[in-house]
């Protein structure tokens, strides 16, 4: 077993463990903090995959913005709900069953696929992933449309969220 594999396993167990805490912790703020731990684990996974840009964006966007928004939302909706009472709904066993089945099904599918033991080729030296990403995002015969549409999507989300949540006037 190589050092990289050991690092991967440690990070994977950390990520999964904190992911499990996210869905089982009673205290919602703790759940949000565990979510941050999970997201950080995923960022390390991105770094292991040589996707440096994704790793940093994961921290900036998820930990810096989405998690903060979650914590604020929990605080905003918590006035009379002190995280008491059951945190799981009546059919939680059903959800557990479905998720176990999903994992089993995915695992089964992966077993039958022959590309699984593939190992990664080395990144060509001088390959600038961020620059390539920039090329791909603005090149008309690549992803310029998704790039602009993402901007529209986000503005639509902003307008919608502001309208839905805070339409006092």
């Amino acid at each position, binding site marked *: 077993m190589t050092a990289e594999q050991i690092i991967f396993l440690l990070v994977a167990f950390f990520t999964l463990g904190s992911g499990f805490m996210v869905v089982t912790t009673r205290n919602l703020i703790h759940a949000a*903090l565990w979510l941050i731990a999970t997201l950080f684990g995923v960022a390390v996974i991105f770094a292991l995959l040589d996707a*440096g840009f994704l790793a940093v964006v994961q921290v*900036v966007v998820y930990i*810096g*913005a989405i998690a*903060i928004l979650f914590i604020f939302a929990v605080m905003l909706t918590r006035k009379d709900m002190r995280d008491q009472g059951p945190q799981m709904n009546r059919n939680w066993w059903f959800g557990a069953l479905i998720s176990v089945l999903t994992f089993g099904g995915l695992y089964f599918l992966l077993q039958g696929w022959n590309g699984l033991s593939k190992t990664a080729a080395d990144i060509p030296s001088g390959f600038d*992933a961020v620059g390539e990403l920039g090329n791909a995002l603005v090149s008309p015969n690549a992803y310029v449309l998704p790039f602009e549409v993402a901007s529209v999507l986000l503005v639509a989300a902003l307008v919608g969220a502001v309208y839905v949540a805070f339409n006092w006037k």
Partner: protein
Amino acid sequence: MDFLQDPLKIAADWLLGIFTGWGMPEIAAQVLIGFLGVLILLSALMVLDIFLVWVERKVVSRFQDRIGPNRVGPFGLIQPLADIIKLLIKEDTTPEGADRVVYNIAPLLSMMSVLILWAIVPLAPTMLGVDLNVGALYLIAAGAIGTLSIIMAGWASNNKYALIGAFRQVAVMVSFEIPMLTVLLIPTIFAGSMGMSAITQNQDIWYVWITPLGALIFLIAAIAELGRAPFDMGEAESELVSGYNIEYSGMKFGMFYAGELLHAFTFGGFWAILFFGGYRFFGLEQVSAFLAVAVVVFKAMIGYWIIMWIKYTLLRIRIDHMLAFNWKFLTPLAFVLLMVTALLNALLADAASWFYISIMFLSNVLLGWISLEVARVYSRRQREKVEGPKVVEVAHH
């Protein structure tokens, strides 16, 4: 002269020889050397941090026409050591009802978020931790961890002041992150890379000459990110006592305090790297790596001094004004600046360099002037809307 040029590599090779001589596998030796290097760098920073306490106290007392610490040691230089001994032997209390785990993790994250920034600081052409090609975003990512530590501290302390302070601080920090991100794009455009090393190498002409407005916006956003006056609403001591760190005592408080000082110094350094050429100073960096380090530390010190100067000169701004200033003035201005810079940069790609620089400089000055005029007209109209007696707002000291 080799040692003067690249001391790190020579030291590392020397250590590698020793370690492998002991029968250590080469990979492990490399990791150990890296670990030692990081440990030495960060320990040196902590020592510098102790010195910064003295600098800060001395400078503020000169601003306020006092002498400052002068009893312990020459010029009071030993004073911060005495402070540290005090912090070390103080009792560390935890308030009842605190969320112990989160409460104890918060100061660690606060300090860590500052220390990890030094991974990407180019100290000399041959001396830098990691030449990360996503450096500019890494800067923001470390800031995100700092934001997180503040909200954790405020929430876990089980104290109203701490919670209010944390909310305010986080609202300000995240808001000013947008103009900061936007102006970070400008050196990225010029250098064609997000790496701090590439940005430094590309500054044959300091970027402050081609984007003075960007440098100014970065400084303002950095001060807000630091939570320093005039943007220190989060710890407004006249109403919130101390803000998010109110319940912390002893060394845990020391971590927040030292983190804040080192953070200010670090942002002074990043200001120098992004806009003032980093370690470059008339070819001095070519002579020796040690001179380059001296240059970058000197520039960072000047940046730190400017941040202090602003802190001890201006009054605290009310939180609604602060956020309005960001969202209604600084953010649109940063976006317009980014668009103008990108456009001019493309249009003048083939122009002579003196022409390019002067057009860039003039466009920045013009944009700054126009935005100030627009803000003046807008605020005059807003003021006319408010009828009745003139409202005088009193800022707290």
